[in-house]
């Protein structure tokens, strides 16, 4: 009987398997997926509002995005994403129709068409050495009717035609050891001044003819002292800088090619200050700004070379560049902070007595401080000057402020997601009003009748639109309560700005956001960075009245030796419950599989000095850990030295200060990869929360293979040292890829295999008993994906049914890592067309549903590939039985089916990671892909076998039943009547 059932199941599975791909109809787009587009933190912004057409602002961001935004609503007109290494250095508009960007350390100059963002030309500027890169688009610098763009990069000054990007002339400064700081153009006599230092105290100036690049004059002067910071040009022939003690201002004046300088003590200008200043890089005509003891000081440079203190600004946060509002009139803006408000002041550069604009704007304090401000002027209805300001905030969000209000805001912090976790929503409270039910019932009926119409194809176009709209804004999916299927959750994301957002999975809206205090810049913590986000408390049984919480681990600076910070956040409200600045560092955070009585998960934070700290710091946690003291093992990877070590807890720390929650550790094992032949490239482990449904796999010949399922497996991929670079830098003979599967408790190498002629980058995913990894094969000139499956041989003799029945099997015997594992591995490689940015595997609640690999392709899309394509048992001619089992005939490459892109027509620009979360419904897995964009959907790798589809017409079902019942009655009555007639006859 079991066999019959099995055969039947196989058949059913086969039926399912004939439907390889799961794809969407056009009208299903947006039903369960959402896509959000972001830009990143704005670095440069240029307004384009002169023409009567659409008003727009062009921005370039830290995520290397160049975009044109609608100034009215903040929507994206167009967006171009440069590569991750193509950092934008400058942005401007040329000829009124091209957006010019300079990127890649001043070696890439591109022009984009202003209306639609198409690239018009690109010019690669060659140079010999790294230098500061400067983009300068002078307003009216012409050479042969051609508008020139001045670019300094890689030690060379280039004059580029703005029409076609041709380099008209080039001047190489790399021969001289001059560090070019400023390039100015004097419009009166078409001269270009190139100013810079040699060392820090020798000042050089070159005068160049703008027409042909001829060097007219060069001049040098030794400054009285060294200089600090950058050189700022106040006008085309005047520069300011600070001396190396930061107490004197050097003013350098070029008159007729002669260098004159004078120095002024800051204390002469401002009484009773002794602090050290910093020149702010705002470009203002005839004025410069100095930051001194958090006080903004504006200093005017007179024509005679004198310095006059103009204004002191308290709580100055940001200063804009100047905009010209009319002939000779320039305005600029600055922002001051006050509680949860900001003061925006716009002033005329030459007239200090009056403000052009003074506004007070209330800003959510979760946005932090103002970091950058860009202003733009417009003519009001009463012909006076109005100003709007684009403000980049500390949390990387972007605001447009006009008339004292925030016109629009963009949460561009979400472009730089660092880590993701999820949280369940609160359980729905009982007690719904009758009126609501009635209304719901009516809505429900109406909806179903509409759907029925659609099914019967009698719907008018208006109805079809109504159906579509209803499906899209279904209120069900965005409710703030837990649903039966577990589709509604909160995605809690940590961004690079140190802000944590909770996104609703139904529609992607931001439920709450919090800028963490611990991850803000402060005296103690200069450059904090957020590292990871973990579940802290996930109450589901006896602590249901408490809200779940998450915690964020950060570090005060990029180096490993910086002290750690922790923040605990309520997952429902976003309140920061607690924050700690720790005395120790953080190298690794290890969530333990134990929780205390309030369901707080125990975590060990391991610092760089090899000490482990237990959190939460409660006696109960200590008590729990002491029970499991001998069972805590972990490993650390030292990728620089090629060493992997295994550790266990040893004893309490014995430092000067007694810390109950601190533990020493000891090394249990080590694996030392020979440095001359291998470098660690990638490591991967299984997800700790992964569920495996069955440990046995039935083969076609009724054999059983047991999966080697251990939580403590580590996949390591090493390459030859010569092949560590880019593809193409090593020959196939000198490159190889070695992969390992290591037990992290004992340090045993379970499997080791060499791919000759292959190299990285390696992307891998580990699930159940298999690992799939992606690499480049130099011999075949193609990317490959390989699969390794590990099977346990020690359980292989449990095949006999009688043994199982009589209990003479070892399936339930405890599994010890210290037993010698008898494993066999099966592996196979396949070609894969794309290069890959990330690989993830679907995860479901019980692990019954078959798995799909989610591959983030180079085209920033997510491809769902059935795991069965990566089965090492695929053969050329599978037998009938194997076919029934679902084994696909062997091919040399993996198929890419267009319908199996789960991102359908969308792109997740700058894709960096994919996260899968199981829904409560076994067939379904939630997928969240993040990069510059965010994308969420839910997928069912074996189709939704355990539920009806959302557009299932219940009304049709009801009507059919009613019709049937009616038919029964009618026929019954008819037959009764006929009987009667028969009897009367």
């Amino acid at each position, binding site marked *: 009987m079991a066999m019959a059932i099995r055969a039947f199941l196989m058949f059913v599975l086969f039926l399912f398997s004939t439907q390889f791909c799961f794809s969407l109809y056009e009208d299903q787009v947006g039903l369960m997926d959402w896509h959000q587009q972001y830009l990143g933190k704005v670095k440069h912004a240029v307004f384009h509002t002169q023409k009567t057409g659409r008003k727009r602002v062009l921005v370039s961001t830290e995520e290397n995005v160049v975009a044109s935004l609608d100034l009215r609503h903040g929507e994206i007109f167009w967006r171009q994403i440069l590569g991750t290494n193509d950092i934008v250095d400058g942005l401007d508009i040329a000829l009124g129709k091209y957006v010019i960007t300079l990127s890649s350390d001043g070696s890439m100059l591109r022009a984009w068409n202003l209306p639609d963002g198409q690239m018009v030309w690109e010019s690669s500027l060659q140079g010999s050495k790294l230098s500061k890169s400067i983009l300068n688009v002078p307003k009216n610098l012409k050479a042969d009717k051609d508008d020139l763009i001045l670019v300094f990069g890689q030690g060379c000054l280039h004059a580029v035609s703005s029409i076609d990007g041709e380099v008209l002339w080039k001047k190489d400064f790399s021969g001289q050891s001059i560090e070019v700081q400023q390039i100015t153009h004097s419009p009166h006599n078409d001269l270009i001044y190139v100013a810079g230092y040699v060392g820090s105290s020798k000042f050089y100036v070159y005068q160049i003819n703008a027409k042909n690049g001829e060097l007219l004059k060069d001049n040098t002067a030794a400054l009285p002292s060294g200089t600090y910071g950058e050189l700022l040009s106040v006008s085309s022939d005047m520069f300011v800088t600070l001396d190396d003690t930061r107490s004197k201002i050097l003013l350098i004046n070029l008159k007729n090619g002669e260098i004159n300088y004078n120095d002024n003590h800051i204390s002469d200008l401002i009484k009773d200050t002794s602090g050290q200043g910093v020149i702010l890089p705002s470009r203002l005509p005839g004025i410069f700004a100095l930051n001194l003891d958090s006080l903004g000081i504006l200093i005017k440079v007179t024509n005679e070379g004198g310095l006059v203190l103009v204004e002191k600004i308290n709580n100055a946060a940001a200063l804009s560049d100047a905009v010209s509002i009319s002939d000779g009139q320039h305005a600029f803006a600055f922002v001051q902070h006050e509680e949860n408000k900001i003061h925006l002041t716009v002033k005329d550069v030459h007239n200090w007595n009056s403000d052009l604009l003074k506004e007070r704007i209330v800003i959510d304090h979760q946005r932090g401080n103002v970091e950058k401000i860009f202003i733009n002027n417009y003519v009001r209805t009463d012909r006076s000057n109005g100003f709007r300001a684009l403000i980049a905030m500390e949390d990387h969000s972007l605001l447009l402020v006009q008339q004292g209000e925030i016109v629009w805001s963009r949460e561009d912090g979400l472009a730089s997601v660092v880590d993701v976790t999820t949280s369940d929503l609160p359980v729905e409270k009982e007690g719904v009003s009758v009126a609501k039910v009635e209304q719901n019932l009516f809505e429900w009926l109406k909806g179903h009748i509409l759907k029925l119409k659609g099914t019967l194809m009698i719907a008018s176009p208006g109805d079809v639109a109504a159906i579509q709209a209803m499906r899209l804004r279904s209120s069900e999916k965005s409710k703030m309560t837990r649903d039966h299927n577990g589709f509604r959750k909160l995605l809690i994301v940590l961004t690079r700005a140190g802000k944590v957002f909770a996104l609703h999975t139904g529609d992607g809206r931001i439920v709450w956001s919090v800028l963490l205090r611990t991850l803000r810049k402060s005296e103690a913590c200069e450059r904090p960075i957020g590292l990871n986000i973990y579940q802290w408390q996930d109450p589901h049984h006896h602590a249901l009245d408490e809200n779940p919480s998450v915690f964020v681990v950060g570090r005060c600076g990029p180096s490993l030796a910086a002290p750690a910070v922790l923040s605990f956040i309520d997952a429902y409200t976003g309140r920061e419950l607690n924050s700690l600045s720790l005395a120790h560092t953080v190298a690794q955070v290890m969530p333990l599989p134990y929780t205390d009585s309030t369901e707080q998960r125990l975590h060990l934070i391991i610092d760089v000095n090899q000490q482990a700290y237990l959190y939460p710091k409660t006696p109960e946690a200590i008590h729990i850990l002491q029970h499991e003291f001998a069972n805590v093992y972990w490993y650390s990877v030292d990728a620089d030295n090629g060493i992997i070590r295994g550790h266990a807890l040893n004893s309490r720390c014995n430092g000067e200060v007694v810390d109950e929650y601190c533990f020493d550790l000891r090394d*249990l094992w080590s694996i*030392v990869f020979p440095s001359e032949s291998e470098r660690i490239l990638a490591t991967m482990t299984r997800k700790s929360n992964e569920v495996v449904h069955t440990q046995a796999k039935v083969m076609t010949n009724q054999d059983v293979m047991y999966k080697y399922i251990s939580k403590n497996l580590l996949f390591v991929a090493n390459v030859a040292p010569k092949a560590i670079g880019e593809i193409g830098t090593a020959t196939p003979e000198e490159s190889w890829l070695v992969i390992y599967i290591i037990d992290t408790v004992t340090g045993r190498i379970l499997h080791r295999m060499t791919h000759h002629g292959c190299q990285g980058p390696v992307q891998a995913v580990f699930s159940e008993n298999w690992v799939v990894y992606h690499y480049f094969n130099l011999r075949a000139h193609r990317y490959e994906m390989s699969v390794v499956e590990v099977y346990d041989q020690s359980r292989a003799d449990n095949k006999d049914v009688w043994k199982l029945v009589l209990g003479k099997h070892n399936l339930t015997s405890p599994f010890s890592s210290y037993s010698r594992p008898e494993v066999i591995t099966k592996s196979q490689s396949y070609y894969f067309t794309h290069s890959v940015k990330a690989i993830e595997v679907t995860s479901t609640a019980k692990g019954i549903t078959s798995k799909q690999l989610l591959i983030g392709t180079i085209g920033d899309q997510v491809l769902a590939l059935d795991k069965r394509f990566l089965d090492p048992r695929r053969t050329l001619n599978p037998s009938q039985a194997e076919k029934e089992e679902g084994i696909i005939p062997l091919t040399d490459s993996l198929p890419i089916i267009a319908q199996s892109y789960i991102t359908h027509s969308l792109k997740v620009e700058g894709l960096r990671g994919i996260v899968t979360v199981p829904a409560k419904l076994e067939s379904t897995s939630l997928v969240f892909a993040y990069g510059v964009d965010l994308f969420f959907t839910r997928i069912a790798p074996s189709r939704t076998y355990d539920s009806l589809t959302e557009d299932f017409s219940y009304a049709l079902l009801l009507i059919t039943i009613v019709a049937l019942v009616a038919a029964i009655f009618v026929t019954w009555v008819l037959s009764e009547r006929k009987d009667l007639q028969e009897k009367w006859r």
Partner: protein
Amino acid sequence: MGVFRLVWAFSLLLTWSLAFQSDELVIDDEELGLEGGQPRSSDSVHTQSLHSTATTRKRFSDSGSDSKIQFELEHAFGGSQFSHAGNFSARLKTWNHGAQTLTKLWFSRNALSETERNNFQKLLQGDDFYRIRLPSNVLSPPGREYIISSVKARCLPGEALEEHFVIHMEGVNILAVNYGSPGSCPYPRQPKLPARWSFKSHTVLKNSDQAPRAPVFAEDVFGGEEGDGEVVKQPEKAFWAKYWMYLIPLGLIVMNAITQAMNMPEEQVAGQSGTQTQQQPGSAVQRGTGSTVRRR
């Protein structure tokens, strides 16, 4: 006892095969003239100096491609210092293309001293780790760092102390050593002491495997088609194997029918003897089932 130790020292296993016997190794030893090799006297086996001895290597004068090499195993009890525990000897083979590999590994372990025995018993009581280490480079020990491996002491005692080494090699470098008992490590632990305080060692050398190539079909498209042509005939299944699912129900039906047919005349008999029916009113109603028949 000394003789016993001597036998042990040389009967330790080379590889999986237990067939490699000690006398062959001894000859090897002599042939290669190993300096600093194990002198075959019974007492020196465990009086080896405890500080690490430099590896001695002597080129084979004739071929220049083989030489003898030796590296030492050290052990520690719990958190104690590492001390000398035995020696691995192997033949270093230099290939024409310059690569060097180890072959013919054999191992001689020192007998446990009295203190070591006590230490081991302490480990067993405290359920602590028995740790070993090897140099990461056999030519210039300890190489960059030692290769450490540990096992819970309770896993080792069996008849004697049973241990199993799998040494992962890459040329002359040791990557890792899988160390533990040759079988399973029982849990919960049994407070068992070994019958004999000597080690029974199994050692295996392992090098990296080649990964299977991705299948290439470009050349043998024709062959592939041919393969398609001749469909592999499945072995004809027996009649029973093919149709059992139909036959069994059929059989049941037939049996059912037969019993029913047999019941019919009996029931008539039963009807005649009224006393029996009164005694078993329930069963009289039932008919045709095997149980009814049997109960009678």
